[in-house]
């Protein structure tokens, strides 16, 4: 089967899922299947079909699995958001359209994505600038104590780290393509581990500094971890030096521990994580005004889900007197809502879809023909994977909860659009790698 036909075929489950999901929510709401549900399904199917036709024309050789996986995740996300708040779902659908447009534009303008390398210093400067934006007075704002957003009143709100992550991956992939040979030369073996010369530790020190900078600047350990993990993955793949990873992980743990105990907001998140069900932490206290209310109720929601979940639209999200029972169900806590309604099986299914998407990303990295492409695909896939780990891990209390989005599922324009661009880059790399050579 040719790649694009396979893609078209794989879009069928996505469209069935969205239609069934909407129908489920409608049945729960009013005991009728309104034709609105079918309209929603049809619109989404139409969008996916349009995306597919565009890819069929522009990139016949691109990976056939990525786009259907995006469709499944995005469709599922819209159903979940619709179930939480129909207005948000309409907005999310618009963001999805914009995401597809940006994906198309990326593909058109960066058909030869290797020309990105030419702008690598511009890209890194812009990315670092984006990371600083949320701390600028007037436009930056904090949610739950973390500085992750920018608000231009009356115009828009967006999350710069979502875009910065792509820019930094591009830069590091390009930079290491040039220098990776140098970085693996020399070094002494101590206790069976090859230690690189001190001067070659430059990149890791820079990445570490960046992660710590993010932690200090944005007060968000999740975002910091996502950047560090993604960039460390590129460094490891580029150099093959396990010692970089070991040193890097230790350095990060040390830095995170030190800053975690000294930045009040980050410390409070650790407190919420470790003492979630302590009533004094739950309701917040002097040192931790927000409290573990959100994490605790997320875990309660998961417990209510059990193996099979309560069914679409059945979980309790609002207090009887109005107001949310779980704060931010459509963004931070959407995994808890999924688990509540679809149970362990539904949640694992979602994680498996993500893992398939990530696996395709790494697969593309292995078949890419030049090292820039390989490193770029590795970085994008790793960054995406760690983003999923950070938010799901936060909701399930594997790590402290921080405010990153669940890609393609969580409500949020920046997340959808940025991850569509990420997808476009992966598709571009795969199209190039899978293109038949020679006449």
């Amino acid at each position, binding site marked *: 089967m040719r790649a694009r036909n396979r893609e078209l075929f794989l879009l069928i489950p996505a469209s069935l899922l969205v239609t069934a999901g909407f129908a489920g929510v409608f049945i729960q709401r009013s*005991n009728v299947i309104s034709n609105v549900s079918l309209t929603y399904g049809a619109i989404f199917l139409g969008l996916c079909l349009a995306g597919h036709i565009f890819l069929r024309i522009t990139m016949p050789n691109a990976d056939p699995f990525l786009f259907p996986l995006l469709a499944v995740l995005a469709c599922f996300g819209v159903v979940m958001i619709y179930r939480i708040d129909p207005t948000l779902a309409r907005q999310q659908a618009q963001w999805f359209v914009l995401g597809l447009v940006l994906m198309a534009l990326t593909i058109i303008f960066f058909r030869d994505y290797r020309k990105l390398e030419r702008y690598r210093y511009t890209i890194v400067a812009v990315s670092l600038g984006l990371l600083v934006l949320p701390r600028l007075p007037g436009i930056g704002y904090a949610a739950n104590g973390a500085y992750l957003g920018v608000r231009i009143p009356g115009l828009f709100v967006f999350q710069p780290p979502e875009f910065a992550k792509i820019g930094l991956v591009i830069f590091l992939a390009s930079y290491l393509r040039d220098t990776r040979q140098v970085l693996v030369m020399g070094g002494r073996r101590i206790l069976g581990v090859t230690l690189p010369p001190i001067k070659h530790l430059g990149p890791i020190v820079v990445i570490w500094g960046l992660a710590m900078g993010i932690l200090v600047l944005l007060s968000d350990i999740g975002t910091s971890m996502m950047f560090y993990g993604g960039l460390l993955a590129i460094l490891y*793949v580029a150099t093959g030096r396990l010692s970089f990873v070991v040193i890097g992980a230790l350095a990060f743990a040390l830095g995170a521990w030190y800053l975690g105990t000294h930045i009040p907001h980050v410390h409070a998140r650790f407190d919420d994580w470790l003492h979630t069900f302590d009533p004094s932490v*739950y309701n917040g206290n002097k040192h931790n005004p927000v409290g573990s209310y959100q994490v605790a109720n997320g875990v309660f929601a998961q417990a209510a889900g059990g193996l*099979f*979940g*309560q069914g679409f639209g059945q979980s*309790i999200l609002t207090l*009887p007197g109005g107001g949310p029972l779980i704060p931010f169900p459509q963004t931070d806590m959407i995994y808890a809502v999924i*688990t509540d309604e679809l149970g362990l099986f539904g949640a694992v299914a979602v994680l498996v879809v993500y893992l398939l998407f*990530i696996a395709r990303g790494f697969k593309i990295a292995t078949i890419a023909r030049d090292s820039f492409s390989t490193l770029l695909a590795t970085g994008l896939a790793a960054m995406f994977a760690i983003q999923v780990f950070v938010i799901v891990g936060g909701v399930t209390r594997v790590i402290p909860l921080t405010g990153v989005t669940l890609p393609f599922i969580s409500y949020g324009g920046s997340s959808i659009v940025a991850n569509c661009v990420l997808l476009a880059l992966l598709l571009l790399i795969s199209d190039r790698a899978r293109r038949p050579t020679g006449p």
Partner: protein
Amino acid sequence: MNAQIIRVFGVIVVLFTLLIVWTTRWTVLEASSLNSNSLNRLTLIADLRIKRGRILAADGTTVLAQSVPAAGGTWSRYYPTKQLFAQPVGYLRASQGQAAGLERSDGADLRGLQTGLSSVFGQLSSNPVGDDVYTTLDPKAQQVAAQQLNGQAGSIVALDPRTGAIKAMYSNPTYDDNNPPFGSKDPNLTTFNRATQAGYPPGSTFKVVTAAAALDSGQFSPNSTVNGNSPVTISGVPLSNDNNQSFGPVDLTTALTYSVNTVWAQVGVQLGIPTMTNYMQRFGFYAKPPVDLPPVELSASAPFAPGSIKPYPPGSGREDIGRIGIGQGGLRVTPLQMAMVVAAVANGGKLMVPHLTARVVNPDGVTVKTINPNVYNQVMKPSTAQALTQMMTKVVEEGTGTAAQIGGVSVAGKTGTAEIGTQGSGLTEPWFIGFAPVDHPTVAVAVTVDKTQGGFGGTVAAPMASQVIQTLLSEGH
């Protein structure tokens, strides 16, 4: 570089495995402990979506509690009878996790068969409805009880001695169960149910217990004579009759009719602590009443050491058994317990388990549960009960309880007037316990009024009991 990429992917797979393990931990392994975590309000909120069944009076038409639609697809409770039935019916404030009375003790029935079954298709029913609870409470009798107390602090409990069905349970101060007075500093605004929670000195009504022990143990008969002179020394301290009146040698029937303290104190001493304790326990003392209300709303009736909040352990040698025999000696009893005492005598010595719930009816009108009469204890021999009934009939015919008489129906009973407050304050706790008709009793009642200024059981409480008994008899009970 491919080997490294595969390793990186391996790490990612490990991380995702952690996510799955942790999700499993919350959804399966630790789910039940999380569901019962006190911080978890999901079950409570889910309860708000259930249309709980009604609570109805014995007539089947008077609604005591019902669900009314509230915001966001939830239900709230409305109590049409407000203050009148507040104590037995209780209240439910699901959003605050607070409930009392039958609303709490019959909560499982009122919620109905909501087993929390869920599946991939969602809950079996999205509009869950609970079962109706029919009580034994008689609206007319309850009304009369409230009228008789007329705002005075106190309590009236009436029940059917043959079955233990509670016909009336009213106490002052009461409250509007639509708006429970949580945290109110006003002592007259309280959810405290005096009928089952208050500890009052029973005064001479307790002589019925002493008399039952005396006759049933075989140590005394109604004709046994005891010296009724005043004072006598009990536990080393002189004890006198009212006005220090000396009766000379009197039989027990006369001693009960005129409530002679010195006689019954001597009887208590002669029976001794083990026998007295044995009979008290048979009547239900030293234990929470076996009624279908939440245990936190029930108090055990027993003698207490002065100033202590804990009763003596049963059979304690420190009890002043002589004074206990006349309802003093630190005795603190609930009105319900005294109703049980008199009901046991009325029912031939057989004490039935008191209950408020009669039956449970599901939304389709099918009775799913019926509360059958249950024997709590055979307290005394039927012959003892018969002899005691004759003695108590005399009390109403010619003794201290004449105010309880009803034209055309013979009533048996016992008065009590406990002195409370500081010596010489003149504060009393009037009591009357009684039943009717004497030959085939169908109504047993206990009445007490709190802190009257010199009121007597025979003048304050007996007329109230008479009215409640008349009401229930006229309704055909």
